[in-house]
């Protein structure tokens, strides 16, 4: 059967993608950030998955205001990197896993989560920046990716609790797939940042790190964080952190298994407007 072997959490700031694409990773501004991912790139080589289930949000790219799905699963064979206004990122196209994705869609909908199924879409920095951070600049991404887009652009976004429960359902879905596949689940976005208004630039290092402690050690408590706490403490765009709870909810300990191993933890301010957080948890 397929199983979830690890979860990866990382911010997905567009400027990080630009820094990689323009060869700026060794500049003074960016060097400390990318140093935090040296471990992760080696870890990816040592722990190459068969499939990545990548939870991210679309930033007014594939979904305009014409259509705003709360949870959307990509079941396509491939996805092209989008032109977000600065031209498409020069990164490989993303190969999907339609068979597993369709299986997960069916199972998760039968577990009462109403997913939108997407057979055609482009993917933006929310999906490609985490791949670049974890894999560097390969000719092709190391494995197929199932994009899972969450609406965190228009309020109300799904609650942390709902996301956490969805993670549990995804775990069950993966484990009911007959092929032996090593699946990683990634949760992306955050951490504290606000991109708008007089309060733009808000960063909350203490709150971010306390939330990371909870995410790792007491995910039920992290999942109970109400929306307004993210807005007040981590900025209006800090709400993206609910996506991390989908990945966390899919880990073994949540279903009564052993606690995960903390393989890596990193935190850095700033990347453009944003606090960058990064965690890798392994199932035993």
């Amino acid at each position, binding site marked *: 059967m397929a199983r979830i072997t690890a979860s990866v959490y990382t911010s997905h700031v567009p400027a990080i993608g630009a820094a990689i694409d323009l060869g700026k990773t060794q500049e003074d501004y960016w060097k400390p950030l990318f140093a935090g991912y040296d471990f992760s790139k080696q870890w990816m080589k040592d722990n190459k998955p068969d499939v990545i289930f990548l939870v991210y949000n679309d930033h007014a790219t594939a979904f305009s205001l014409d259509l705003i799905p709360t949870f959307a699963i990509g079941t396509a064979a491939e996805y092209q990197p989008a032109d977000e206004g600065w031209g498409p990122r020069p990164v490989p196209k993303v190969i999907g896993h339609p068979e597993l994705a369709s299986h997960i869609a069916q199972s998760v909908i039968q577990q009462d989560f109403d997913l939108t199924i997407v057979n055609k879409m482009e993917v933006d920095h929310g999906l490609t920046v985490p791949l670049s951070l974890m894999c560097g600049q390969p000719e092709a991404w190391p494995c197929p990716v199932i994009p899972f887009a969450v609406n965190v652009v228009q309020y109300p976004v799904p609650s942390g609790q709902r996301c956490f429960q969805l993670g549990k359902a995804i775990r069950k879905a993966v484990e009911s797939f007959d092929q032996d596949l090593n699946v990683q689940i990634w949760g992306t976005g955050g951490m504290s940042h606000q991109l*708008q208004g007089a*309060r733009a630039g808000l960063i909350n290092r203490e709150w971010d790190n306390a939330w990371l402690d909870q995410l790792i050690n007491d995910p039920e408590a992290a999942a109970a964080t109400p929306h307004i706490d993210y807005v007040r*403490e981590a900025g209006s765009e800090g709400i993206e952190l609910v996506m991390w709870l989908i990945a966390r909810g899919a880990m073994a300990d949540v279903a009564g298994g052993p606690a995960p191993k903390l393989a890596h933890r990193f935190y850095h301010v*700033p990347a*453009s407007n944003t*606090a960058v957080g990064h965690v890798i948890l392994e199932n035993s």
Partner: protein
Amino acid sequence: MALDKPYKDVPGTIIFDAEQSRKGYWLNQFCMSLMKAENRERFKADERAYLDEWAMTEEQKQAVLARDLNWCMRTGGNIYFLAKIGATDGKSFQQMAGSMTGMTEEEYRNMMLKGGRSAEGNRYLGEDGDAQPQHQPQGKSHEPQQAAPGKKG
């Protein structure tokens, strides 16, 4: 029955909820159109004519022409959509976010390098943090220019 909107008392922040989204539909869809290179060219060639092709309010058009992102947001714009205007102008996300604070680009960049804006005093309206209405605009971008004394910069 009233909707639950506990985020109305956060200073310097407009939450893009269903109500804002309804107000800003055409403004945001106009922004979306700028993802095509051909449309970016047409917009740059004659901004007013291009805006007039959209069912936006006159105020929304004025806010876009003024590149006043706070004004755009008040009329229903969302930052991820408005970012397409910034991209058309060759601006980074940091330049766009900074422009909403009244700080110069350098002031904003330095604030971020020092760890960003503190949440202290900026959680609720009525406190005394730097994002509160009584402390706007922040920074020097609105100070009179030397070349044109008395005019807004």
